[in-house]
């Protein structure tokens, strides 16, 4: 469930002002990307080719600052599913784009035998099971390979966890600090962007806000905003 730090009316007014005086960041949000939908994804991305720049060229600051001749397309790959790597990555690369993987770090460390129950217990939804008897999460090897080819990686908490005003300090530490270390250890590179399940934004929980900054996250990706924290 989405929780906002201010009223929806106030939020809408802020967003309208943000669009009018800033930029509109263009995302396509994906979760599971099964091969049954390959042609749909390919048609979408093909239609975007030539209309948008790649996130690879101008990075997150490019999204924040704008200024290019064309807007940047940010394909967001939520949840760390294996089919993101098998199905969507090749399509993105075919048309010169890179994706931005939002990974709940612990999902990748869950043994294959237990990944489906982990997914069921942590709101990680997917369609048909295309890998019966095998893992459904992207592997660390695949994530590192994608990163080496220019795809971006963000921390989507440790266990795909939502933020509320009363989320305990222990949970916050695990889902922010431990998650960052776990993701960076597995990836072998720094991760500077965080996103909660349901996309809570800065200002909802001051303890979370402080911990995100203390942990070294530079950006918070939320439902309506990409917020630069430091």
């Amino acid at each position: 469930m989405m929780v906002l730090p201010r009223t929806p009316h106030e939020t809408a007014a802020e967003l309208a002002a943000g669009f009018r005086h800033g930029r509109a960041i263009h995302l396509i949000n994906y979760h599971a990307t099964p091969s049954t939908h390959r042609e749909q994804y390919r048609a979408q991305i093909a239609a975007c080719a030539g209309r948008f720049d790649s996130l690879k060229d101008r990075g997150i600051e490019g999204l924040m600052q704008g200024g290019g001749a064309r807007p940047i397309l940010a394909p967001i790959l939520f949840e760390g599913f294996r089919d993101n790597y098998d199905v969507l990555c090749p399509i993105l690369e075919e048309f010169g784009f890179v994706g931005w993987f939002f990974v709940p770090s612990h999902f990748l460390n869950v043994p294959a035998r237990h990944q489906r129950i982990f997914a069921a217990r942590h709101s990680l939804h997917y369609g048909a099971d295309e890998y019966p008897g095998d893992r459904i999460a992207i592997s660390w090897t695949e994530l590192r390979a994608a990163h080496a080819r220019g795809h971006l990686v963000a921390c989507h908490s440790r266990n795909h966890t939502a933020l509320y005003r009363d989320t305990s300090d222990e949970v916050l530490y695990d889902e922010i600090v431990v998650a960052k270390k776990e993701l960076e250890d597995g990836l072998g590179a720094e991760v500077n962007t965080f996103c909660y399940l349901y996309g809570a934004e800065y200002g909802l929980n001051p303890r979370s806000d402080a911990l995100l900054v203390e942990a070294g996250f530079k950006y918070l990706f939320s439902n309506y905003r990409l917020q630069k924290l430091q």
Partner: protein
Amino acid sequence: MTIDDDWLDAFEDDIVRLSRRDYSVTGVAMYLVPEDLTGGPSAVTPDPEGERIGKLFEEVCAAMEARNGPLSGSDISHILEVLADRHFLDRSLSSFESAAK
């Protein structure tokens, strides 16, 4: 642009159509606003599309509030989703979903 009842009906029809998709396997277009909380001078370069989307977003929010009462967080998401679906490209991004069927 004037938002009349017919226009708002069509917009709400799009909300219904898009929100009934299976989000777990669908590519969903969405707009975000960049927000620099560091307090430094803004390096953001305003763009015409942002201005156009901002104006339209404001008008749709006002029209939906007038028709349905106070907005919810979900209303905001739905409005942004329809705007993104309609305005990313010359045709709606969701129209490509038929390619998989």
